[in-house]
């Protein structure tokens, strides 16, 4: 079988901007930041107090009590986002389609909240007993498994864990399976719920988190801001989508990966550039046809100039014609879910002809001299876009998209 074109026919999201892809998009297109004081953990012993938490997520609104108890928060987010994506795609399940649908979910840290509870119970309660569901809730593959059970699909299913690139690696694997004919449909994305105190302490110790907000590409930026949530995409062959009259929100056209093989926390521009080039090569796309980049754009001192250098290395003079925005300024850095939230942002940007901005931008940094779409969304009919994810450990993954009606 030859390579097939792959359509994105549904998206779902849970983020600091709200429960639902429409809520995410409304926030992104308004340039509204979901960053605020952290409510789910006591931050009095941390150097930061702000995060991009999902507020108003009531498990009882989505699950029976027993079903909710089986899941850590990150799995609950994953299932809610997957249901939304499948509903938007108007999937009509048949036994055959259930057999041939894949589920690939990225998560960087898995069930941190459940793990922390088990540790606290073990070390600090009278008899050190932990809950029997500690392991089924906390395991890294829990979100993937819960999505397969909720949807009742039996195809290839696995979890990808590559820190902040987890989602892009997951979506990329699913994309390749649909393109090659290994799967007839895929539900792919990422999920994360990292607001557990010990985990926050780890980030605090790394001195990577901003004490106020996330200002990617801004002079004097002070770091990332942690987020949480999930996002899912439904992928299927373009021809199958057209045949059943499904909405083609965008086409997923390329996926590229690389390893820096240099440093565990300091990213390399060559490594990032290698992944961008690999995605363009996979998409058979020349660099000058790309118009929008959803940046990794964490707002750390190190990432943003590195990413600027990588884009200049790949795109040369065309880099000055790229619109580059960092939506982490609004949905926060949801670690393993970030790539999926950004993939949804990119798909909807192509769909609506509107580029989400880099929010919280105050002053240009000469080391990040790109058009970063500061603070206000910009109307632009864009044909091709890429979405970057670069992880701790130097593992990079880049997705390339084409406008649906292109």
């Amino acid at each position, binding site marked *: 079988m030859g390579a097939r074109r792959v359509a994105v026919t549904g998206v779902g999201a849970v983020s600091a901007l709200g429960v639902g892809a429409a809520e995410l998009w409304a926030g992104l297109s308004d340039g509204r930041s979901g960053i605020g004081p952290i409510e789910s953990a006591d931050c009095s012993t941390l150097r930061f107090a702000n995060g991009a938490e999902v507020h108003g997520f009531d498990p009882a609104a989505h699950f029976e009590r*027993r079903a909710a108890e089986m899941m850590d928060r990150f799995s609950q987010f994953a299932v809610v986002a997957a249901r939304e994506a499948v509903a938007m795609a108007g999937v009509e399940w048949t036994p055959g389609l259930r057999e041939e649908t894949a589920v690939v979910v990225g998560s960087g840290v898995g069930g941190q909240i459940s793990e922390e509870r088990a540790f606290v119970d073990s070390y600090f309660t009278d008899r050190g*007993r932990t809950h*029997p569901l500690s392991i089924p809730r906390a395991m890294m593959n829990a979100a993937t498994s819960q999505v397969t059970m909720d949807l009742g699909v039996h195809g290839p299913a696995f979890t990808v864990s590559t820190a902040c690139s987890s989602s892009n690696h997951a979506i990329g694997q699913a994309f390749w399976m649909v393109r090659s004919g290994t799967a007839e449909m895929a539900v792919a994305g990422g999920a994360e719920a990292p607001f557990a105190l010990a985990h926050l302490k780890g980030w605090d110790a790394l001195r990577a988190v901003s004490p106020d907000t996330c200002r990617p590409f801004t002079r004097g930026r002070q770091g990332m801001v942690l987020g949480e949530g999930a996002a899912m995409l439904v992928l299927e062959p373009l021809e199958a989508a057209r045949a059943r009259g499904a909405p083609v929100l965008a086409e997923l056209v390329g996926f590229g990966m690389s390893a820096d093989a240099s440093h565990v926390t300091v990213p390399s521009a060559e490594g990032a550039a290698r992944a961008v080039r690999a995605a363009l090569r996979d998409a058979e796309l020349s660099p000058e046809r790309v118009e929008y980049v959803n940046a990794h754009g964490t707002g750390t001192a190190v990432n943003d100039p590195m990413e600027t250098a990588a884009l200049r290395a790949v795109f040369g003079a065309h880099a000055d014609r790229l619109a580059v925005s960092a939506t982490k300024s609004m949905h926060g850095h949801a670690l393993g879910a970030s790539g999926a939230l950004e993939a949804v942002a990119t798909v909807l940007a192509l769909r609506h002809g509107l580029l989400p901005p880099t929010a919280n931008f105050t002053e240009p940094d000469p080391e990040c001299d790109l058009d970063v779409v500061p603070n206000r969304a910009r109307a632009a009919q864009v044909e091709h876009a890429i979405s970057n994810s670069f992880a701790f450990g130097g593992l990079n993954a880049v997705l390339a998209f084409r406008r649906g009606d292109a």
Partner: protein
Amino acid sequence: MYDELTQRVIGHIARTHSLPEESVTPESTFDELGIDSLGAMCLVADLEIELGVDVPNEELLRVKSVGDAIDSLARVLAGAAEQAEAGAAPQG
């Protein structure tokens, strides 16, 4: 009228599984109540913590009904009481 332990177990099952209390009796099997083996394990774990006891694995494997759970917990509670009494007795 049930004894205190029976009432506690029935109340816990009804609460955690959103069942009317009168539908749960010592004769109810977990199958009938729609509680699978993982659910039964969670139930016993909750009650172990509440009552401050340990139900051994071999006891847990025999628990198929509400009555089985009550019997197991009663046996373990009786064992714990005996031990406490022995421990409290003057030595030598």
